[in-house]
C-alpha cells in the first residue's frame, strides 16, 4: 500500500510539473525553463523548513511565489523571441539556473551537523514529513490537495474568458492582437502562473525526496515538463494527468517486468505515440 501512496506522490508532483508547462503551452510558448522554476521552489521551500524551521505550508507558499517571480522575470525577455528560439533560450535559462545552484553554498550548523545546500553535493536531510510523523498516505493526500486545486484552477481558467484569451494568443497572435488583446499581458501572465505552479511542485518534490541537488533539475526534467502536456494533448488538464500516468505509472512502473527492454520501449513509445496521436492522447480543442 505504501508503494501505491508513494507512486501517488510522484504522480502528483509530476502532474504539477506538467501543468506548469501546460498553461505556458496554451499561449503557444514552448518553455524548457519550467525545471528552473521547479528548482527555485524546491531550494526555497527546503531552506525554509530545514534552516529556519518553518511549517511546510508557508514554505511552499514562498517557494511558489519565488517561482512566479522568477518566471515573470523570464516572461518579459521571452517576448522578444519566437518559436524555436524560445525553446533554446528557455533551455539555456534552465541550465543557467541549475548552474547557479551548482555554485550555491549556504550551510548552517545545527547541533554537530551542518545542513543546507552545498553546491555540487546537494541539499540533504529535508525531512519535514517523516520528522513530523506524516505517513506516506497523508503526504500523498497533502500533495493531491494542491494538485486538485491547481487542476481546478486551470479548468476554471479554461471555462472563463482568460482561458479563451490564452488559447487565442496560442492559435494566432496577429488575430488576437487585432481584437485588442495585449500579447505582453497574456504571455507574461501565463508564464508567471506556470512559474507559481512549478515553484509549488518543486517545494513538494524537495520534501518527498528529502535530498535535492543541481543535477536533479537537469534538461531531462525540463523535457519531461513539456512532454506531459504535449503527449497528453492541450484539450484540457486531464490530458497532462493522463500523460503523467502513461509515463510514470505505465512506462516506468508497469513495464518493470520487462527488465532491460523498459528503457528502450520508453523512447520508442514516445516516438510512436507522437506519430499516432500528434495532437496528444486527448487531442486538441475544437479538432
Amino acid at each position: 500500500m505504501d508503494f501505491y501512496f508513494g507512486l501517488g506522490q510522484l504522480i502528483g508532483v509530476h502532474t504539477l510539473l506538467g501543468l506548469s508547462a501546460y498553461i505556458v503551452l496554451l499561449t503557444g510558448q514552448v518553455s524548457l525553463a519550467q525545471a528552473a522554476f521547479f528548482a527555485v521552489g524546491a531550494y526555497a521551500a527546503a531552506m525554509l523548513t530545514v534552516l529556519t524551521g518553518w511549517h511546510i505550508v508557508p514554505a511552499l507558499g514562498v517557494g511558489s511565489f519565488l517561482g512566479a517571480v522568477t518566471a515573470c522575470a523570464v516572461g518579459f525577455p521571452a517576448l522578444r523571441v519566437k518559436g524555436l528560439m524560445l525553446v533554446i533560450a528557455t533551455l539555456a535559462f534552465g541550465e543557467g539556473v541549475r548552474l547557479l545552484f551548482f555554485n550555491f553554498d549556504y550551510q548552517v550548523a545545527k547541533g554537530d551537523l551542518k545542513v543546507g545546500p552545498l553546491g555540487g553535493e546537494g541539499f540533504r536531510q529535508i525531512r519535514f514529513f517523516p520528522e513530523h510523523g506524516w505517513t506516506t498516505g497523508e503526504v500523498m493526500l497533502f500533495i493531491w490537495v494542491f494538485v486538485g486545486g491547481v487542476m481546478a484552477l486551470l479548468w476554471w481558467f479554461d471555462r472563463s474568458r482568460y482561458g479563451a484569451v490564452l488559447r487565442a494568443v496560442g492559435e494566432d497572435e496577429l488575430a488576437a492582437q487585432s481584437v485588442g488583446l495585449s500579447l505582453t499581458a497574456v504571455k507574461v501572465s501565463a508564464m508567471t502562473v506556470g512559474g507559481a505552479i512549478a515553484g509549488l511542485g518543486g517545494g513538494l518534490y524537495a520534501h518527498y525526496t528529502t535530498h535535492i541537488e543541481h543535477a536533479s533539475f537537469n534538461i531531462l526534467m525540463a523535457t519531461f515538463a513539456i512532454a506531459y502536456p504535449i503527449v497528453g494533448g492541450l484539450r484540457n488538464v486531464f490530458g497532462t494527468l493522463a500523460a503523467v500516468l502513461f509515463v510514470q505509472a505505465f512506462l516506468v512502473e508497469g513495464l518493470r517486468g520487462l527488465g532491460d527492454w523498459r528503457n528502450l520501449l520508453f523512447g520508442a513509445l514516445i516516438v510512436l505515440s507522437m506519430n499516432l496521436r500528434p495532437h496528444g492522447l486527448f487531442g486538441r480543442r475544437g479538432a
Partner: protein
Amino acid sequence: MLDFLQTLSDGVLFGATYALIGIGFTLVFGVMHKINMAYAAASIGGAYAGLLVLKALATAPAWMVFLGAFLAGGVLGWVVYAACFHFIPLSSPLAPLMSTVGMLLLIDEVIVHLTAGMPQNYPAMFDDVMLRAGAFTLRGDLLLVFGVSLLCMIGLLALLYRTRLGLATRAVSQQAVAAQLCGIRVARVNALTFVITGLLGGVAGAMIGASVGTLSPLITMPLTVKGLIVTVIGGLGSIPGAIIAGLLVGGLENVFQLYRGVTERDLYVMLLLFAFLVFRPGGLFSRT
C-alpha cells in the same frame, strides 16, 4: 597572455566539432523549420556504428572507422526522418519536437544496451602530433578536425548552390508550397536533407570521438545543448553562421573556464547566448 592565446586556440580548434553539430541543426531548421533534437544523439550513434568497422577488421586504420561513421550517420539520419517527421502532419508543430526527444532517448538507450554502458576507446589520426612554436602548442588531431569541418562546409555549400538537389532544397526552405507546384517532391527533399545532415553528423561524431579519445553516451546531452546554442548564435538556417558561432563558442568557453573556473563556465556561455538574443536575435547571419 600566452595562457590566454593557448586557451583560446585550443577552444577554437575544439569548437570545430560544435560547428559541425551546429550545421546539422541549422540545416534541418532552414529546410523544414523544425528542430531535430535527436541530431547530436544520431551523430554519436553514427560514431559508435563506425566502431563496427573495427569489429570486422581489428587492424582497420582510423580513416576507415571515420568513413563507417559517415555512412552510418546518413542511415541514422534517414531513420530519424522516417520515425519522427515523415508521418506527422505539419499542422502539429509540437509533435515532431517531442518525437525527436523520444528518438534521442531511444538512440542513447540502444547505445547503452550494445556497449553495456562502458566508454569505448576511439581511434584518432595525428593525435600524437603536436605543432609547437615555443611554449605554444597546437594539437594535430584538432587541426584535422578543423580541416574536415571546413571541407564539409565547402562541400555542403557546393551541394546547396551548385546542384539541382541543392536548388530544390533551397526552394523548399523558402516556400514549400510553391516548390511543390514546380514539381519538387517535398517529402523526398526533406528525407534527403536528413540524410545529408546525417552524413555530416556521422563525421562530427567521429571527429568528436577522435578528439576526446573515448566515446560515451554521457556527452550526448551537453553536445545537444551546445549545438543548439551555436545554431541560435549563428542564426537559424545559416551555415556560415553555424561555423563561426561554433568556433566562437568553443574559444570563449575555454576562455571563461580559464578566468572563472569550470563551475561557472557554462553560466557565461548562457549569458553569451542571452546577450545575442537581446541585442541580435537573428544571430550572426540572420536570414532575411
